[in-house]
């Protein structure tokens, strides 16, 4: 699983980082995003929805937001 450290980045930068990585990876692969902007909890699922990907995990841990995206 590819991991992207997007701490301190404000939206939409985490989404841009995810999008850049997703372009380089095949369907079925997963990307873990580690973020601090709470906006990712709505933006990443929204981006996944319009591009047909799936958020398989989304949780807040000690002020950080961890999301796992499975590429379709």
């Amino acid at each position: 699983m590819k991991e992207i450290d997007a701490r301190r980045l404000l939206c939409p930068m985490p989404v841009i980082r995810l999008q850049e990585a997703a372009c380089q990876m095949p369907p079925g692969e997963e990307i873990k995003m580690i973020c601090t902007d709470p906006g990712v909890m709505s933006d990443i699922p929204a981006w996944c929805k319009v591009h047909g990907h799936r958020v398989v995990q989304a949780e807040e841990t000690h002020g950080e937001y961890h999301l796992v995206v499975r590429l379709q």
Partner: protein
Amino acid sequence: MKKQPKAVSLISGGLDSMLATKLILDQGVHVEGINFFTGFCVEGHTHAIRQKDKDKKKRNNALWVAEQLGIKLHIIDVVEPYKEVLINPKHGYGAHLNPCLDCKVFMVRQAYEWIHKHDFDFIITGEVVGQRPMSQRKQIMPVVARESGAETLLVRPLSAKNLPVTKPEAEGWIDREKLHGISGRTRKPQIALAQQYGIDDFAQPAGGCCFLTDRSYSKKLGDLWGHRGHKDYELDDIMLLKVGRHLRPKANFKMIIGREEGENNFMEGYKREFTHMKTVSHAGPLALVDGTLEAGDAQLAARILARFSQGKEEKRVDVVLHHKDTAAEGKVISVEPMREQDVSKDWYV
């Protein structure tokens, strides 16, 4: 079989680009959205940072619009190439440091390059003739089409009937009769069209969707440029202009003082890059120092910071000062908080 035409739509997250896209989608065109991140976009950054706004609804309006329309949205990082637009705008600035016309040309040019790269046929924007004083005057709209290189591949569905026929109309990819002829500053036709489509939830940013149209923000950017002696900037510079109180007590340094916990937390991330200070004897904000502290300046800055702490009415407040690029423990300075009347209004940027 006739090939389905493909268009890319510049999605700002507002109503006009949403309606423009809907009009073209309804004509059977495959549409994908594109949204450019310049660093100045108003996308809830202050809400994301400030503790008091933590419960406010956050969403990226461009993504939300794409969801409603059922189209893909590509968010493109243009922070680097946008610098040239802002630093040297060919058509100048608007009321503040907003280079609206150059910005529009830039974005359409980016979209034009994108359609070539991705084998799309034309570009859609939500522009309306006469809607904005600088970039959407009737005589200016051909400038955007020409200078961007898009020429007749640029379609403004909301105002198409007020403008010359474009290639997608001439070729029959879209039907001009189904496009609109809206003009002027009134929003009534767009609201009516939205109602027709059953759209009742849309973003209406009062000052546009860009911090550069904000007087206070532009003033801070102008101050930054003026005191650095050049206009170049990094993303962190322009992000920090969105945070805290900015005070410049002397030409050689500026203080950015957090206004609340969320801002202090955000500014914590910049401690390695900036000389910074914090009150230690009393609760108080974090301050980043942009510039160089000369003899006596540390005392002055500490007195100002103490004024914004809970020890502001005390005789002495201890402030710890950390110089950037030093791993050493900070130096504690004991100061008398500056009196309220001595914090000059002229220091506020």
